[in-house]
């Protein structure tokens, strides 16, 4: 072994340790008061009155900072567009036959519960922890499971790529449309209660104005987007393995 890699290793160790020390000094610089100060105190005190949502994190994501959330989901949209363009060359592909019968039956029993879990996380995003991002990702995980266990042609038969495109674009349009309602009411882009959305009774399912609708929109976008990314990649994988007996991913 030459001495050059050791120098690199020691240098990177020193870099990591100094970065960690800086981060720990940042933790030490945080205020240690028991009382919540700054914008956090405003959110904790007024969220229930101003948005009607019980989940303060969800209220911040989809009401106070909804424009940031629109930007974040645009990032996912751009990533999906790029990956779909990158992998769209191969028209023909042969799907794998999937895993064994036991795995298929087991996943078949699990999938309805996973779908229900994802729906609950999206629809109750304004009441309990969760929201559009998390629930949409669970939807994408279900399609990933179907791809791996049943083969990608089965998955594309039940969730066609065209449907995913429509869902993703529909989520983006729904989000922007809700924002434009606020603009039309004269209270600013993506404004919630001020734009006339009903606040409902605090803590009930139908409350918090536009927050549940925006949750559903983001869930559509994220779920369809991530599952399109995985489907594009595994389509290429199946095409690359054409000369072998079809197997799943590993």
């Amino acid at each position: 072994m030459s001495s050059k890699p050791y120098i690199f290793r020691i240098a990177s160790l020193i870099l990591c340790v100094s970065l960690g020390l800086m981060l720990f000094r940042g933790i030490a610089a945080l205020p240690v008061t028991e009382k919540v100060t700054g914008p956090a105190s405003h959110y904790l005190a007024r969220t229930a009155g101003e948005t009607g949502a019980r989940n303060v994190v969800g209220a911040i994501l989809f009401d106070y900072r909804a424009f940031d959330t629109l930007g974040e989901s645009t990032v996912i949209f751009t990533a999906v567009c790029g990956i779909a363009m990158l992998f769209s060359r191969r028209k023909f592909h042969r799907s794998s036959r999937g895993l064994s019968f036991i795995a298929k039956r087991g996943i078949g029993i699990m999938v309805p519960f996973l779908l229900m879990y994802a729906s609950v996380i999206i629809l109750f995003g304004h009441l309990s922890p969760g929201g559009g991002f998390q629930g949409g990702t669970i939807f994408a995980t279900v399609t990933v499971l179907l791809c791996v266990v049943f083969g990608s042609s089965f998955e594309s038969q039940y969730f066609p790529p065209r449907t995913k495109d429509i869902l993703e674009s529909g989520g983006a349009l729904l989000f922007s449309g809700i924002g434009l309602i606020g603009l039309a009411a004269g209270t600013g882009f993506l404004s919630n209660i001020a734009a006339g959305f009903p606040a409902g009774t605090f803590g009930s399912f139908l409350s918090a104005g536009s927050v549940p609708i925006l949750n559903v929109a983001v869930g559509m976008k994220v779920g369809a987007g991530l599952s399109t990314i995985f489907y594009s990649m595994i389509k290429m994988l199946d095409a690359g393995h054409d000369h072998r007996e079809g197997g799943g991913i590993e």
Partner: protein
Amino acid sequence: MSLSFMIFLYVFLIATALVISAINDILSAVITLSVFGILLATAFAILQAPDVALTQAVINSGIVTALFLVAFSQTEKPECYSEEEEE
């Protein structure tokens, strides 16, 4: 939550992170990454951030592992994988 459990959690977090960065076998690194994600999600849940914990658990253990496995099976492997490739 008890202090000993937190120490256990943090020690295992650091250990799995070191394993991920040091191990040569990429497949083991990907699987260790999902273990790391679950431990980190537990830590987030204990620190009263359930939203972040949910995101961490779902994305790191579900989507990222699946995408990394697809990318792993598409890349050129060094010699040590030649016997595992034939399933």
